[in-house]
């Protein structure tokens, strides 16, 4: 399953990446599973693991770990917001 993933703010900087298109294995079907999958990439990716205060959005709507992913989804990961 192909997905677009976006990273913002401090997360974008620490990963050195703003956007990627990934082909996910069949067993990665939810936001929580995607967090696990990405956090296994190495040290810098640990922040994506559940419980690290990094938020997720799917197709520009906030999404919990249980959210089921679909082909072509735009997933975004970012730290808590600080606008205003």
């Amino acid at each position, binding site marked *: 399953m192909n997905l677009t993933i*976006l990273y*913002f*703010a*401090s997360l974008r*900087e620490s990963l050195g990446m703003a956007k990627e298109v990934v082909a996910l294995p069949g067993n990665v079907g939810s936001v929580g599973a995607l967090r696990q999958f990405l956090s296994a990439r190495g040290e810098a990716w640990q922040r994506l693991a559940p419980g690290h205060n990094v938020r997720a*959005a799917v197709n*520009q*709507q906030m999404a919990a770990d249980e959210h089921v992913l679909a082909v072509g989804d735009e997933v*975004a990961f*970012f*730290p*808590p*917001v*600080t*606008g*205003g």
Partner: protein
Amino acid sequence: MEVRVQEADFDVGVETRALSSGRTDIGAISTFLGLVRGASDGVQCMTLEHYPGMTEQSLAEIVAEAKQRWSLLAVRVIHRVGPLQPGEQIVFVGVAGAHRGEAFAACEFIMDFLKTRAPFWKKEQTPEGSRWVDARDADDASAARWLDVESRR
């Protein structure tokens, strides 16, 4: 446009007058203007990042929620992005209603939710280097207290 995210500065007078332009049913306009706070915190410059698309949609949803809670006649939200200097305007919220009660309340409601929900991130440049601003628990508390406030229409 009810919601705008832009690099350019804005004119508070123009934006405020636009809320009631051409109509006579509005009796109250409440506005909030946020500025980049700087020198005392050692901030030389600030950069605002956002999530194009989601940010605008998130602001529109916050405005829609305010309109469900209060009887509002016009709303305008403007948030700047990109590099900003201390003292510069960063955010404007203008709310028009028939009376002041809903205008005051909705203006504060929109700001409280903008600060905790809309995807913007601040990075500050200081003499010691740059740092991403941490989210404040106090902002979450400000937004959470609206959950207990009964809607008044």
